[in-house]
């Protein structure tokens, strides 16, 4: 992926309405890797007792990071859709802290891109969640 492509991919991700609504920011992008952050927001609370963010919002972050990693892969085109996504929740994210997902597209075929991702809050030694997913590769990509 060239620098121009990289900027195109970055713009592409910034233009996703649902990711924007969740306040996501592209921190790093290129060579099949994407780092995307999502700030804490009270509107995203899933557990009223502990004020922990809903797993669904973490899923949306993982899905965005996964798709971004595919788009940032040199062999995939500028566009993808999720085929499947599995998320394991290791612990509750600490309320008030930004969650950052790092996704890596580790294999691409003519039709499918394979991704793994990890999400952390401020305590980066203990991941909040991990994910694995398969994404579509657009026809016509090299």
């Amino acid at each position, binding site marked *: 992926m060239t620098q121009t492509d990289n900027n195109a991919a970055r713009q592409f991700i910034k233009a*996703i*309405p*649902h990711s924007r609504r969740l306040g996501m920011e592209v921190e790093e992008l290129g060579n099949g890797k994407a780092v995307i952050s999502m700030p804490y927001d009270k509107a995203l609370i*899933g*557990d009223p007792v502990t004020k922990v963010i809903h797993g669904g919002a973490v899923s949306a972050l993982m899905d*965005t990071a996964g798709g971004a990693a595919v788009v940032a892969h040199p062999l995939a085109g500028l566009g993808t859709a999720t085929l499947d996504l599995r998320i394991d929740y290791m612990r509750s994210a600490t309320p008030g802290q930004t969650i950052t997902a790092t996704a890596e597209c580790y294999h691409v075929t003519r039709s499918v891109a394979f991704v793994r991702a990890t999400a952390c809050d401020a305590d980066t030694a203990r991941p909040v969640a991990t994910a694995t997913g398969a994404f579509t590769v657009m026809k016509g990509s090299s």
Partner: protein
Amino acid sequence: MKRSEPVIQVKRRRDLALSVIVNQVPYIDFLGVSFDRHGNQLTSTMAFHDDLIGNPMLPALHGGATAAFLEVTAIIGLAWASLWGEIEGESLDIEAVQTGVLALPKTIDFTVDYLRPGLPRDAYARARVNRSGRRYASVHVEAWQDNRDRLFAQASGHFLMPQRDG
């Protein structure tokens, strides 16, 4: 449930319990998800709005919005199913629940299959609790849009049940 209980009272009790479970979660409102109840069967609706779009070119729903919708439906469906006995036995202390002491199941893992693109219109989902033990539960969820027979996504996940009496 008492056989002689008037139907209006039965519905009011069930609907109040459901609204207490749903309204305590800010994220459900954020997504624009609501629940319809027929007896003990819940159907959730994610009303379409532009902020749910993931691909503006098609346009199609964001995979993350779809995953979140399915997970919300699974958690509420599981909480509802596990409270149903108490709601019907009138042993559920609604006032205690209203003050926010109702703990919800926690997701252990969740796997989503995307079967076709999510169209820019309302989506519906139903959860089925396949196994519900004291500590763990397994739930399957199906989502569709125009046609109930053409699912656009399905998911299954495992959940840790809240320990309500210590």
